[in-house]
């Protein structure tokens, strides 16, 4: 029994680790999105955290915990000057500006010497254990949970619902938006550092536009109405490829395109038919059952 469990753990350890990492990344998108701002610069923040921690590992003998702190603080410090001009933009313009920023950061990492160009940094020692990933995820969830019921939480919700109205009520919208952008950047930076020390490498191609789209997809599929929704989405979509791989082996077909297809199809179905995401599914089922039990109660 114990051996079987151990073997199960060994085969699925990396999936479990990536569920945690992707959950953290999805939360980083969610954090900014919770004030109605869609930032797609998260891959750049992740890259900053990853490069900073890996370079510290190579050039300075510091404890890993300190590196993680640096990986959390540095992206936030970058996010503030980015946010000052960019958060004045609205809607899709903000999104485009953050895409532009993300690409510029990635291209700089490709061209700098001390980041070893397009090859990236390899042979990064493995210092991440799975429990650290989940500790970080739990920490992020705790912060978001504490924010939710607080004064700041209500302010953020007001900003998301109606920005001008919130401003009229005397809420300092710019401060909150900036703070949430910086917080999201920290989450992404920590995830980047943890991933770098889990996969042994920091490669600039990891931090491309498609990575940030993945994060967004996790958040949206899980649901952005509640703070744990993105983690639900990340869990579902990270575990799904494993299931697909098993199934496509059964039918002897190439898993690659099937995985892409299923990802796209799940996202589309959720957007069209489950706008609050998977996290809202239990509530919906409950409501549907209640409606069935008392058909003409209204």
């Amino acid at each position: 029994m114990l051996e079987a469990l151990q073997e199960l753990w060994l085969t699925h350890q990396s999936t479990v680790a990536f569920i945690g990492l992707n959950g953290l990344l999805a939360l980083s998108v969610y954090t900014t999105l919770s004030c109605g701002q869609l930032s797609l610069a998260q891959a750049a923040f992740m890259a900053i955290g990853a490069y900073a921690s890996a370079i510290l590992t190579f050039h300075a003998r510091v404890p890993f915990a300190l590196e993680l702190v640096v990986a959390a603080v540095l992206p936030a410090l970058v996010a503030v000057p980015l946010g000052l001009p960019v958060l004045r933009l609205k809607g899709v313009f903000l999104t485009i500006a953050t895409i532009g920023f993300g690409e510029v950061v990635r291209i700089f990492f490709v061209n700098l010497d001390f980041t070893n160009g397009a090859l990236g940094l390899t042979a990064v020692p493995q210092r991440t254990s799975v429990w650290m990933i989940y500790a970080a995820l739990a920490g992020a969830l705790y912060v978001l949970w504490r924010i939710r019921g607080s004064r700041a939480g209500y302010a953020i919700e007001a900003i998301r619902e109606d920005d001008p109205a919130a401003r009229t009520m005397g809420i300092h919208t710019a401060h909150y938006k900036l703070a949430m952008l910086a917080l999201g950047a920290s989450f992404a930076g920590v995830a980047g550092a943890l991933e770098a020390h889990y996969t042994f490498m920091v490669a600039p191609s990891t931090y491309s536009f498609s990575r940030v789209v993945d994060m967004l997809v996790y958040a949206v599929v899980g649901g952005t109405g509640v703070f744990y929704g993105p983690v639900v989405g990340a869990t579902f979509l990270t575990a799904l490829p494993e299931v697909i791989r098993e199934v496509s082996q059964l039918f002897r077909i190439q898993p690659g395109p099937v995985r892409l297809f299923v990802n796209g199809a799940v996202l589309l179905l959720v957007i069209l038919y489950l706008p609050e995401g998977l996290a809202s599914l239990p509530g919906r089922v409950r409501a549907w059952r209640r409606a069935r039990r008392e058909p003409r109660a209204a």
Partner: protein
Amino acid sequence: MGQQVVNGLFLGSIYALFALGYTLVFGVLDILNLAHQAVFMMCAYAALVLVVNLHLPMPIAFLVAVLAGGVIGMVVERVAFKPLRGRSDSNTVGLISSIALATILEAGVVAVFGPDMERFPIGTVPNRTLAIGGAVISELQIVIIGVAAAMLLGLTWLLRRTRLGRRIRAVAESPKAARVLGVDVDRIIAASFFLSSALGAAAGVLFGLAFNNVAPDMGRSVELKGLAVIVLGGMGSMPGAALAGLALGLLEVFTVAWIGSSYRDAIAFGILFLVLVLRPRGLLGSAALREA
């Protein structure tokens, strides 16, 4: 120098075609259609199949692929955008549903053609060259610049002078007012998607020919460049997109010549970023940003 200008115009005219389609839909719906790059890529494959498997001559394959692109565009609208219309967050949600559809289309292409790049057979396009002044221009480059220019003029004529064009502009101005005046808004939106995707398809086929490279991920980098172009030109502005497309093409070519190829893309996105921060309405954008 002359050579660089020619190369830049050639690259820029493809960017311009792609971005025109992008900006047309944005002008009408205020939504970024991120499936545009998938149409671009699929139609390059369509032209490839028509030439390689059905042995059609290139010009006919081009026309068929462009029409197919328009039809795919209408399907994209029907599946990814129409069901969301009227939802309060339709801007963000439409962006995401178009990403979903792009993923599905790309998966289909990978399943059929595999992930590797394909080439047009030798002799599909003329490869003679002309020397004008100090610059060497291939016949293909002339054809591409010519086709792009013709399509730009055709679109301008259509939007300015025809009933359909007037209605498209009316819906772009205000869907509500257009509906009150008896315009079938749903049909106009479908028509805009047809036009937009036909332009994207044309850009895809020309891009495939120009670099003789058709791959499932060929649309990715062009998609982001297209964003830079429509922002630089002013979101929703057609002449702006055309001008900015050419400008970006020239700029990239000169960056490669003077600074080096590794910073080529950084220039595009650096400009994108600066324009958004300093002058969000772009070169030729008309109105200031709408208040939320």
